[in-house]
Every structure is written in structure tokens, then in C-alpha cells.
């Protein structure tokens, strides 16, 4: 209930962010009903109709296997959502747990947060590359790797916020009521972290897309047969002069989606800054 009101306030009067939000909703819907709206099978090869220009019935043209680019783009939305949601869940779960526990149990926290600092010293993409070379190429592994990379920043942020909340009087009050550690962490602290977690989630969602696209492009992300926007870019890059639409459409989709996610993230972040929504009780 609170979260709904929070969302409504966050987007009130922000046209661009609302447009971004709607675009994301569209992607999610496309991902869910992809088989219903895609005009062709995204994996069906047609050796005769290779590299056709955009038009009817191939709206975005066909690639060098003669596969319908429009259908592949719609199925690519599926990958976008899976990668995004998956990485967010992994990052928030691992990072959130590490951050909260480190802030709450200070001795263990010293050790854990130093480890996080070391991991954060590597550039995100480099760390993802190192991890992925240890594993096979698969959807699950891509999600895991990206999630772990962003777990470090999440841990840092939640560490700071938990530390601050831990000093609040209502936590002291809960301690005095006899509440145990798990009750304090998950019943008293966690609900107060939901709004910042939501913001963090929207940014990870955006960054995960870029990481995934980069990994795909380098041939280290999703298996090549999976239709994803990054794979489309990677496979068709040699045709950039003969069939530029093969790169323009997926490229545009990535850019617009990541931009939308960032707009949504900005809107959410601005609205949790409590300085802007103080009531007039103070005067």
C-alpha cells in the first residue's frame, strides 16, 4: 500500500520518467506474450530470404540466416526481462544480506566489507569476464555473474543505510522490548530499506542490460542461438555496411530501454529523499 503511494508520488509531474516507465511496461508485456505477437519463429532459418530490407512481412528485415529480426527483437525482450529481473534478485539478495549483516554484526562486518572493497576495485566488466570464463555460457550463469558483480555496490549502499538505521531510537526501543537479532534485522530494519532497495533495483536493471549486451557482443554472454539484443548486435556486426538495420534496431532498443530504466531510477531516487516531502507540521 505504502509502495503504491510511493510510486504514484515518484512519477507525478515527470513526463519523461512516466514515458520510460510505460516503455518498460511494454517490454515486460512483449516478453510475456512474445509467442502471440511475434509474426515468425525467431529461430526459423530461410536461406532464400537472407538480408532482406525492412518491409512487409519482415518489419525489421531478416538477418544473414534469413531469420525475422522483428520476431527476434520481441523474443529478445524476454531475455532483457529475464537478465534484468534475475540479476536484480541475485544482486539484492546477496548484496543486501551482506550489507545488512555487516552493518549489524560489526566484527564480522569489518571482514566482509573489506572483501567487498577488494571486489569493487575491479571494473565491473572485467570482473564479469573473469567470472564468466570460469563458467559455461548459459542464461543462468550470465544472470549469476552480473548479479554478483552488482551485489558489491548493493552491499556498500545497504551497509551504510543499515548502519544509520541501527542508530535510530526505534531500534533501541525494539531492543528494549526484547526483540532478537533476526526480528530487528528483518522486521524492523528491512521494511525501512524497501524504498532505497527499489531505487537500487532499477539502476541494477539498467546496468545489467549494458553488461549483458557487452558480454554477448564479446561472445561470452548468452549462448549464440538465444535471441537477445546483444547477440543480435554481435552476430550481425560484419553486415553493418550491407544491412545496417540489423544493428540499428537492436541497438536502439538497448539504448531506449537502458535510458528508460535510468529515468525511472532517477524518479524513484528523488522521491525517497525525505527533504522534499516534509509536511508543514514543523512550522
Amino acid at each position: 500500500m505504502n509502495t503504491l503511494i510511493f510510486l504514484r508520488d515518484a512519477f507525478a509531474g515527470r513526463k519523461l520518467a512516466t514515458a520510460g516507465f510505460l516503455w518498460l511496461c511494454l517490454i515486460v508485456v512483449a516478453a510475456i506474450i512474445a509467442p502471440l505477437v511475434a509474426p515468425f519463429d525467431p529461430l526459423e532459418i530461410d536461406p532464400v530470404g537472407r538480408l532482406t530490407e525492412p518491409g512487409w512481412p519482415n518489419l525489421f528485415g531478416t538477418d544473414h540466416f534469413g531469420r525475422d529480426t522483428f520476431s527476434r527483437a520481441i523474443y529478445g525482450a524476454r531475455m532483457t526481462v529475464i537478465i534484468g529481473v534475475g540479476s536484480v534478485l541475485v544482486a539484492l539478495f546477496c548484496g543486501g544480506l551482506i550489507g545488512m549483516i555487516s552493518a549489524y554484526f560489526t566484527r564480522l562486518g569489518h571482514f566482509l566489507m573489506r572483501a567487498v572493497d577488494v571486489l569493487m576495485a575491479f571494473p565491473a566488466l572485467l570482473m564479469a569476464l573473469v567470472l564468466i570464463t570460469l563458467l559455461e555460457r548459459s542464461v543462468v550463469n550470465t544472470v549469476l555473474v552480473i548479479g554478483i558483480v552488482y551485489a558489491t555496490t548493493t552491499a556498500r549502499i545497504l551497509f551504510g543505510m543499515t548502519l544509520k538505521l541501527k542508530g535510530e531510537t526505534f531500534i533501541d526501543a525494539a531492543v528494549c522490548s526484547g526483540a532478537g537479532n533476526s526480528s530487528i534485522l528483518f522486521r524492523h530494519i528491512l521494511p525501512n530499506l524497501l524504498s532505497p532497495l527499489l531505487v537500487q533495483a532499477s539502476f541494477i536493471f539498467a546496468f545489467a542490460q549494458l553488461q549483458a549486451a557487452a558480454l554477448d557482443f564479446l561472445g561470452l554472454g548468452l549462448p549464440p542461438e538465444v535471441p537477445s539484443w546483444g547477440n543480435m548486435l554481435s552476430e550481425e556486426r560484419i553486415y553493418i555496411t550491407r544491412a545496417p538495420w540489423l544493428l540499428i534496431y537492436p541497438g536502439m532498443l538497448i539504448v531506449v530501454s537502458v535510458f528508460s530504466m535510468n529515468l525511472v531510477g532517477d524518479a524513484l531516487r528523488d522521491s525517497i529523499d525525505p527533504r522534499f516531502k516534509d509536511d508543514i507540521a514543523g512550522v
Partner: protein
Amino acid sequence: MTDPLLRLVDLKTHFQTKGVGLFGEKKVLKAVDGVSFDIAQGEVLGLVGESGCGKSTVGRTLTHLEKTTSGQAFFEGREFLSMTPHKFRPLRREIQMIFQDPFASLNPRLKIEQTLGEPLFIHGLCKTWNEARSKIAATLERVGMDPKIMSRHPHEFSGGQRQRIGIARVMILQPKLVIADEAVSALDVSIQAQFLNLIKKLQRDSGMSMLFISHDLGVVRHISDRVAVMLAGKIVEIGDKHQIFEAPQHEYTRKLLNSIPRIAIGKEA
């Protein structure tokens, strides 16, 4: 003579402070430095002093919110400062604390009934929510609040109302000792008076003992039976309130009393 409810023997709470600069020496802040007193059954001890004298730290140490450096505290004859958190938990029901800031002491995400119900379940005083709700309703009525408000969130209430809810959270456990840390300081004068009356009435009715920590000498005189004056981590004077306020022995107590602005009422002014 029976044992006092609470006996504090040479309590010390020291804090390590960070050194100044990269190689600065660490310093020890002696917030509480050798405090001893007794509180009898049903007695209210006022603890006064200026900011930084360590009076709040005494309260926070007694509720295990700060670590004790040395010294002992006995509750009904049992030493409890050295107890593990697990062993201390049953005693938390008996020793409760009222906090100063009514805006910060309630979890903004929890409904009033959740905040008030939690301690009931923790200490096994209730098994079902129905039982809990009837207890919550009765306690809210005792502190002068409409029981219907229990399904609302803290942000819907004024500072005074929140403080009543804070007191309800304490009273619902029927504690034997309540530590009130500047419990009325954040309230406006007219609301503060209502609270002093309420706390006094609750204390009389339940026969609980109280450690009333405040910087306000008028408030302390009003509510306490005995008064202890603290300065720089130590108690400089302790005694019956009439003795402290009418025949102060220590120079610092006299200085405090002389500093209070007074109002001359009536024609003689």
C-alpha cells in the same frame, strides 16, 4: 529492610573515542565514572544533570544498550549487567525504557498494534492476536488514547500522541522498573504537564519504580521521591528531594538551582 529493587554499585561506562588525525592517540571518554545508588520498590529516583554529564548513559547501560566497563547492578538481588543477551531477555520485560524523541522512537513502517503487540508475543504474554488486541486496547485507554487508533501508522499522530503510544508500549508489559530518559523534554509545556500527571498516575497505580532522567529540575522535583545530581560522570549529591531542593549541600547543586529563571507571580512582583 528488604533488598532494594535496583542496586547500582560503582558503575563505570567508558567509551573509546577516535584519536585526532592519522596517528592521534585514542582517548577514553568516562561517560559514567563510578555511580552507585539504590531504588526501592515503588520509588522514583530523579537523575538530573546538564548535557554530557552521563545521565543518559546510566539509563542506556542499565538496559544493555551500552556495554558496561565495570561495576555491578542488581535487580531483585540478581546481578544483570554481566548477563548474556539471551539470559537478559526475560529481565527486559521487568526493566523498560521510555525514550525522549517521540518522532524517532516508533518504527514508521509498523502499525501501532504491531509495535505494541510485538513485546507481548516476545515475552509470551499472549498467544493469539485477539488476546493481544484486547490488551493493547486496554493499555491505550490507560494512557488516554482511543483504542481504535491501533490500526494506524505513527506518522498520523502528533508528538504528544506518539509519546503516549511510547508509554503504552512500556506499560503493556507491566514492568517493575521504568527508565524514563528525558521522557517529557521534547513536548510543549501544556502537553508536558499532561504527561507528568499521566506518568505520576501510572506510577502510583502500578507501584512500579522509576529512574527519571531529566535536565529539567522543576520536572524532576515534581515527579521524584529522591534526587541524584550528576556532574561529569559522577553523582555529586543524592538525597530526599526536599533536602536537595531546599537545603542543597553541594556547590554545583546550588549553582544549578540558582541558574533557573523564576517567575514572580502576583502583586508583589
